[in-house]
């Protein structure tokens, strides 16, 4: 039923694509129906489809509730703060793909469904007008799932057919599946595509692209791995790779000066924990699988909340660059609360599900105490980076005006989209400047073109100050006098709405981390394969 609703919703979204005024409410309705269908999903159910079987498990139910709620919130955010016509179809198709990927007992079919969802997610990142960087990103977003599928699907059949050295066959298969997981999980060094996506693609599409679909793929990989025997060598390699990933991503996260890239590097680190699940020996595979089943939906929901936070920052008139984020928490305290809630939902505290799941993942494959300490220390760095973001938000100051911020974009500005700020993220910041005194300089033209002598002197003075303070962009620099005068503006309705929705999305992983929904019990229960095997 859920698959039928999501599939039908995606089909309708494609048909209504030329009519945005109909598409938005239709997509809202479809996503709401998906959420309802997920809530009403029976705890254990199975259905035969031709010669195959689909299984509904408690774990699948929690996945679908989290994903549906997450996508509904992101759709509302995109509706309030901008629009992207491919997104509803991609989200609804992605929901169907997640349900099928986790509900089929066969790993190859599950990975294929997850890959299909990845292609739909890539579709939502190609927006008009397309720039060269966007086209290149689109090509990369198609290459990576295809390569991962080509690695994983044959590998799942390899152990059964390798004659003679069974351990060699298993080692090769695990290595191939690990390679596929690295590709899909944006694990370093392949996180560069995620970095490019964060600076080029619409922000509302990024949770589907970088969190939910990769998480479904990784779950399929881990479920398959848990059924194999132990091998030496490749496990040590995976543990080393996991450690390197976590440390590298933690350092990268800590050094970031952009909130969007902060999310990207924290995603890379969190996905790296899956490598430990793939490396777990046979005797610990049960606990490792359970920990991965807890960790992956929390990871996806938390990253979606993180991207919702970035949308909130962008809609509040700030860019996501930390240099421009002074005082954001004072202006929108709901967003600050969302950040705190998100930290607990993502990283957890001792005794909460996220913390315990990450510890169990590492402990299952690494008994060395030094390694655990290294992972623990590396896990703290992203938390410190997020707290630094919060501290910047609590400082007194004003973010630059919307026109300036839309140009400054996130990270290193992509020069090909700089002239078209809407292309950057689909957000239309349709507001006029509220501090007319600072508009002695025209914001939307390069300084010095068609200006009076007085405005040119004002621009030159502001630029000199800006150079001294290393502020970005001529328009942001020109806004400096108003900022120094301490003139603020209260949040608009749009900002409040995005802050509320971002807070609600952050509460999703938080609630699950506290035990709502009993994810722990669901993770310990049967998976799709076990459920089908129990059928008479």
């Amino acid at each position: 039923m859920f698959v039928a609703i999501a599939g039908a919703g995606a089909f309708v979204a494609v048909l209504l694509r030329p009519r945005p005024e109909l598409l938005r409410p239709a997509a809202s309705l479809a996503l709401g129906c998906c959420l309802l269908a997920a809530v009403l999903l029976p705890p254990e159910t199975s259905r035969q489809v031709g010669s195959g079987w689909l299984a509904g498990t408690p774990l699948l139910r929690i996945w679908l509730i989290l994903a549906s709620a997450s996508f509904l919130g992101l759709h509302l955010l995109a509706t309030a703060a901008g629009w992207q016509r491919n997104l509803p179809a991609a989200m609804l198709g992605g929901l169907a793909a997640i349900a099928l990927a986790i509900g089929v007992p066969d790993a190859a079919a599950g990975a294929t469904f997850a890959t299909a969802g990845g292609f739909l997610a890539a579709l939502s990142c190609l927006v008009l007008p397309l720039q060269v960087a966007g086209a290149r990103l689109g090509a990369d977003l198609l290459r990576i799932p295809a390569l991962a599928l080509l690695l994983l699907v044959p590998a799942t059949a390899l152990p059964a057919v390798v004659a003679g050295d069974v351990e060699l066959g298993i080692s090769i298969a695990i290595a191939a599946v690990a390679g596929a997981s690295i590709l899909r999980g944006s694990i370093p060094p392949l996180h560069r595509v995620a970095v490019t996506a964060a600076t080029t693609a619409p922000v509302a599409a990024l949770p589907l692209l970088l969190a939910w679909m990769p998480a479904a793929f990784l779950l399929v990989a881990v479920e398959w791995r848990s059924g194999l025997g132990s091998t030496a060598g490749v496990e040590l390699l995976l543990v080393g790779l996991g450690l390197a990933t976590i440390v590298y991503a933690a350092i990268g996260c800590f050094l970031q000066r952009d909130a969007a890239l902060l999310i990207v590097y924290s995603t890379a680190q969190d996905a790296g924990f899956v490598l430990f699940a793939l490396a777990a020996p046979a005797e610990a595979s049960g606990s490792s699988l359970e920990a991965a089943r807890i960790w992956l939906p929390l990871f996806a929901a938390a990253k979606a909340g993180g991207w919702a936070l970035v949308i909130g920052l962008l809609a509040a008139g700030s860019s996501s660059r930390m240099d421009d984020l002074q005082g954001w928490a004072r202006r929108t305290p709901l967003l600050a609360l969302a950040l705190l809630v998100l930290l607990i939902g993502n990283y957890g505290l001792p005794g909460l599900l996220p913390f315990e799941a990450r510890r169990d993942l590492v402990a299952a494959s690494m008994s060395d105490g030094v390694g655990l300490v290294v992972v623990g220390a590396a896990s703290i760095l992203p938390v410190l980076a997020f707290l630094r973001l919060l501290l910047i938000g609590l400082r007194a100051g004003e973010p630059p005006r919307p026109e300036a911020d839309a140009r400054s974009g996130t990270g290193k500005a992509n020069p090909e989209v700089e002239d078209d700020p809407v292309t950057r993220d689909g957000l239309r910041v349709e507001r006029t400047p509220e501090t007319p005194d600072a508009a002695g300089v025209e914001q939307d033209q390069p300084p010095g073109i068609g200006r009076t002598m007085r405005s040119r002197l004002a621009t030159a003075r502001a630029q000199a100050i800006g150079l001294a303070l290393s502020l970005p962009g001529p328009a942001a620099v020109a806004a400096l006098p108003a900022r120094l005068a301490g003139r603020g503006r209260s949040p608009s309705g749009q900002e409040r709405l995005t802050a509320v929705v971002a807070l609600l999305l952050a509460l999703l992983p938080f609630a699950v981390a506290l035990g709502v929904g009993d994810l722990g019990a669901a993770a310990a229960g049967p998976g799709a394969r076990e459920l089908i095997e129990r059928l008479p």
Partner: protein
Amino acid sequence: MPALVIFGAIGVVLGSAMVLLSRDSRAVVIALGIVLVLSPVAAAPLPSIPALGFRVVAALLAAYLVQLGFRRVRRHLVDAWLGGATEAAFVGLAAGAGLLLGPLSLEQPTGLTLAAGLASGTAAVNLLLFGREPIRTGSGVLLAIVSAGLLRGALAGPADDLGQAAVAACVVAAATAVGWLGLTGARAGIELDMTAFGRDIRGGG
């Protein structure tokens, strides 16, 4: 039954080679269509009739979507890496390796499926890693999906109906994304000459 498998395997191998050899976008689409339509019958036992129908319809739809996206592409395409003839020779070698590695008998023509899978996989990897134009990269994506299914079929037997549906859905989703990439690129009037994998990444961080 084996005759159909032979026909399907030969079609997949030749179609994969044709994708690499073609300099015309229409020829690439036709070759892709041949591969997509014939791949379900390149494995024994054949899928059920509904699953087979589903795969064929999905293949035709995918070919149409790709054609829709690239109909305005300039005719003369660039070779991916070593030149079309050399790359097609690699595809032929991969097919030969599959025939040697897999059993070949009337009852178990697995070698044919393995040959088709390795051939399409070789073409896919070549296009994915070295394709310089969206239609080349997109062709690689579709060939990769076909190859994954064929290799799995050769190693562990063909997929059940849900597995076939998964491949069909993946093919359509990929073709939609590939066609959209071509369409948006054409609208933007961009000459999309993308360099090899990993070398054209921009961005911060």
